[in-house]
């Protein structure tokens, strides 16, 4: 029996297919077991651990390519496992264990829990499929297929407020179609769709369009600007479990996976080129603009949603440098961000579960009642703010290093992002967990988060520390073999000056926070002086009105174009409904007038008719 199982497990193809199909089947079973929470929890643990086992077995295998002998014209159902894909698979699987456990506990007693788990598991199958796909068309199949489950999860329990779902589908649909265009151009110019057969296409001609479109599609999945605006909207409308799983984790993994693939393998992407600079600009803008929005939020979920966007900027900036240190930093930051951002969203979900709100104005001093949650929050905050010793510090320093090597302006942008990140977490942390206790009226006595939710977030907090001081594990043991980058970037940052500058930025943030708290009377309003600063005030006003939301621009452009089309259509309708009938009627009347008994008129008609027939025959 054991021998049979181990033999089966050693067949990579079996595992590969199971990782796509089994999650969907488990999803159906979980949906059917929606009335038994115990059974659901058991199945979630079993299935996610099984998925992890498969992923780790694949991780230990040599590279291989596998074709399913079914062909849809233009598509080859080809998959491959290499060191890079298998690392991402294993990381996704590990995160999925914690996310799914948290989800099943968080959604207990919700009428839609079964359906949500179905969507979640189908999504896992799709993500696994995208990570294992070799053919770009098949990658797109799984990638874009996530739109369906994304739409379902955003609508779940929230059909009366479909704005987030509509926005997400429109923006992600646009990004996925751009990805389709990029993939098709690349496939046609490379002469193959298999990534294993495409190497270092030069960035010229159609390749540039292909590269840009694929890159935008990849980064949009991660929530990069300008494809980001559905995420804060989702923070208002969607279940928090969704934020934990998707903007917090899975979408970042997928987006960075593809972006790295194209930058390091498919195309010749070199440091200092126009493409590299454009990517760094995009990354820096995403860091600064998103964190600036996070800074002024008074709702925990929305604040974290903007941070989820901003943190992606560091990854884009790092990878966009095209330097080994930047690529390593970007990938390491992706891992770290997924760990602490999922943890932070988990905390938001737990607080919402206990108090019924994530509105920071209604919540204060929760630290004493929820000490473990508060401790986890502290660890995640130190990590995201880049406090020395925690994982975020090490990955940010690598990105800073690469940014400075590229141009000081990118480094300043990244530092500005770090400054505002620290500010917003100081604001949120102090007002949420410190000070006099306050919860909304009617809230039952507050207790610590349930074990089922506390365990995943505690494990994540532990990983923040392991990946920090023990960064040899992620950098040298995991990422270096996966990326093929030989240089070691583990250990303490090599530039003491950069570390000192980073610490100085954190100190500045603390001083600014204390100043703001004193000026406006509470930690929650500590960033209000920035919100109301001259010039910035008008920009913030415009943003809050949605004037700078690219989604609104898209809708306005569509509306304007539609108005023009409607006018064109009216013109055509006029021809059909008015002009032609009138002309026919007048011609009829004219002919009628000719039929007045006069021989000459009949002669004209006969000659005219014969000429028409002659013309016809001449044409033939």
């Amino acid at each position: 029996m054991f021998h049979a199982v181990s033999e089966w497990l050693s067949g990579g193809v079996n595992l590969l297919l199971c990782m796509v199909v089994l999650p969907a089947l488990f999803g159906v079973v979980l949906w059917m077991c929606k009335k038994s929470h115990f059974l659901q929890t058991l199945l979630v643990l079993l299935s996610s651990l099984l998925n992890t086992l498969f992923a780790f077995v694949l991780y230990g295998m040599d590279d291989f390519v596998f074709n399913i002998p079914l062909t849809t014209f233009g598509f080859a159902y080809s998959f491959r496992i290499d060191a890079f894909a298998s690392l991402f698979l294993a990381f996704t699987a590990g995160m999925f264990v914690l996310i799914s456990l948290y989800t099943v506990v968080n959604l207990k007693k919700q009428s839609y829990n079964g359906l949500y788990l179905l969507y979640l598991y189908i999504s896992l199958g799709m993500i696994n499929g995208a990570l294992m796909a070799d053919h770009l068309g098949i990658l797109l199949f799984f990638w874009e297929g996530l739109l369906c489950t994304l739409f379902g999860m955003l609508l779940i329990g929230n059909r009366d407020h479909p704005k987030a779902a509509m926005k997400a589908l429109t923006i992600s649909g646009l990004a996925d179609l751009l990805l389709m265009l990029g993939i098709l151009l690349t496939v046609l110019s490379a002469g193959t769709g298999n990534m294993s057969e495409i190497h270092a296409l030069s960035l010229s001609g159609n390749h540039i369009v292909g590269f840009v479109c694929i890159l935008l599609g990849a980064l949009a999945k991660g929530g990069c600007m300008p494809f980001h605006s559905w995420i804060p909207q989702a923070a208002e409308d969607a279940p928090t479990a969704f934020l934990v799983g998707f903007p917090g984790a899975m979408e970042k993994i997928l987006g960075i996976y593809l972006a790295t693939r194209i930058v390091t393998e498919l195309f010749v992407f070199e440091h200092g080129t126009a493409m590299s600079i454009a990517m760094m600009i995009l990354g820096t803008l995403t860091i600064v603009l998103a964190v600036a929005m996070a800074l002024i939020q008074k709702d925990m979920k929305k604040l974290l949603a903007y941070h989820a966007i901003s943190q992606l900027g560091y990854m884009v900036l790092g990878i966009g440098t095209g330097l080994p240190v930047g690529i390593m930093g970007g990938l390491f930051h992706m891992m770290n961000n997924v760990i602490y951002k999922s943890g932070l969203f988990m905390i938001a979900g737990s607080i919402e579960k206990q108090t019924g709100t994530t509105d920071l104005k209604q919540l204060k001093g929760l630290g004493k009642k929820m000490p473990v949650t508060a401790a986890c929050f502290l660890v995640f905050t130190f990590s995201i703010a880049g406090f020395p010793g925690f994982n975020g510090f090490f990955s940010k320093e690598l990105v800073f290093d690469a940014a400075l090597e590229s141009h000081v302006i990118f480094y300043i942008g990244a530092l500005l992002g770090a400054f505002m990140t620290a500010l917003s977490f100081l604001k949120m942390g102090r007002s949420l967990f410190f000070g006099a206790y306050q919860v909304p009226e009617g809230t039952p006595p507050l207790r610590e988060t349930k074990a089922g939710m506390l365990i995943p977030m505690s494990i994540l907090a532990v990983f923040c520390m392991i990946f920090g001081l023990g960064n040899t594990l992620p950098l040298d043991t995991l990422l270096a073999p996966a990326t093929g980058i030989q240089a070691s970037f583990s250990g303490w940052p090599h530039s003491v000056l950069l570390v000192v500058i980073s610490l100085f930025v954190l100190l500045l943030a603390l001083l600014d926070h204390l100043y703001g708290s004193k000026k406006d009377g509470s930690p929650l309003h500590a960033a209000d002086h920035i919100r109301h600063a001259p010039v910035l005030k008008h920009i913030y006003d415009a943003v809050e009105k949605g004037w700078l939301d690219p989604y609104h621009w898209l809708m306005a452009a569509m509306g304007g174009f539609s108005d023009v089309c409607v006018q064109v259509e009216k013109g055509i309708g006029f021809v059909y409904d008015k002009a032609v009938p009138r002309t026919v009627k007048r011609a009829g009347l004219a002919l009628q007038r000719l039929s007045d008994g006069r021989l000459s008129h009949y002669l004209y008609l006969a000659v005219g008719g014969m000429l028409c027939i002659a013309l016809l025959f001449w044409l033939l």
Partner: protein
Amino acid sequence: MNGWILILGILVPLLGACLLPLLGKIHEKLRDITAFLLIVAAFVCAAFALFGVFSKTPVSIRFALPLGLSFGFKGDALSVFMALTATFVSAIIVLYSFGYMKHYKNQNEYYMMVCLFVGAMMGLVYSTNLIAIYTFWEISSLCCWRLIGFYREDITVQKANKAFLVTVLGALIMLVGFMGIYGQTGTFELSAMQGVHIPAWTVVMILFGILSKSATFPLHNWLPDAGVAPSPVTSLLHAAVLVKIGVFAYTRLFVLTFDIHASFGSAVPTIAAVSALISAGVAFRQNDIKRVVAYSTISQLAFILLGLSCQNEIGLVGGLLYILAHSVAKGGLFLCAGIVEHALHTKDIRKMGGLAKTMPVTAIAFMLCAFSVMGIPPFSGFFAKYLVIEGILASDNVVLGILFIVGAVMTIMYLMRLFVKVFLGPPAEDAPPVKEGTPVMVISVLILGLASLLLGMIMFLPSQLATMVGGVL
């Protein structure tokens, strides 16, 4: 097996249709079921012909006429593909009609016209002769005229006349083109004209017929107006049969038979691009549920035409798969619209909202079909859209490829708007209490929704057949 299976596939619905009014006088249910079985019989005949296609010996039959003329039918990959698609969707539409039409007068004529329509479609797809194609083409126009004017009100008759006049005028111009070809080749038999280069003016003439039938800009205006017909009729016209005749004829004549001037390889896709974008733009501003779906049809037909006209195998296969995916999904959308209209007695989406609560199955079916039309995987529309755009890019026309990507984004936007306005959000003020459609109607739309999904999962099967059509290029 021989060519008689094709004759059976044509005559069963054509002649059977004439029996339906008599059966209707005996027993209404008997008439309904017979109508359904007639179309199923046509589907079965097409399925039998499929064996011939896969064994590389397509069934065919030919009849000699006096004066050296002849006519014949052939079940090749294209005709069987079209016949299977049209009869499958038509059968579901007839099933749906059992619930939708039961309270209306003139049902005898309705079922007769529907079967006649499907029979004409079968005749058209199997025909190997230009005059036979034209004859069946016009029979379909007559059926279309009666069906659009089904309610007999002034406005519906006016719209029916408009559809009839536009499509018949287009067909007459096309006939002139056919005559021109006859003048050059001395035959109407397609097999005798394989690879013959035909003059540009005949192509233009025939294109008039094709574009008017397939409602392509600027000859499309009759199609949204045809929404005054009962929903099964609009579904039949806009999704399954009528509009597909034009794109079928394009494939049969300009892709598989004649050699046409290379400039049409860029002119027709350009017309298609204009049609796709303008109709998508108009769809976004419509408030009549059926008009939104109708303009969507015009836009999606342009995608099909694009695939068929980009003169490479990828585009052709994509175009054919698009015909299948669009027929199934758009058929479902129109039928869902019919359920909603039936329940609310309005087509104005501003008076709708929140229907997903009261009509959950219809909402799910609508969403499934809409996802397919949007081209989202794993639905069948994804593969079709991917291949069509790959086809145009493969013909080195990146600009048109980008324009069609814009069209695809617009498709998502107007269909999302429609779904949200009708099925999500709070119910409209003064909206009457509604309930789900009759079981047979709901099952019909669910079949089409699930078929859109399932076809995506098994796309390698229809793809094999479409590849056999494309293989001749």
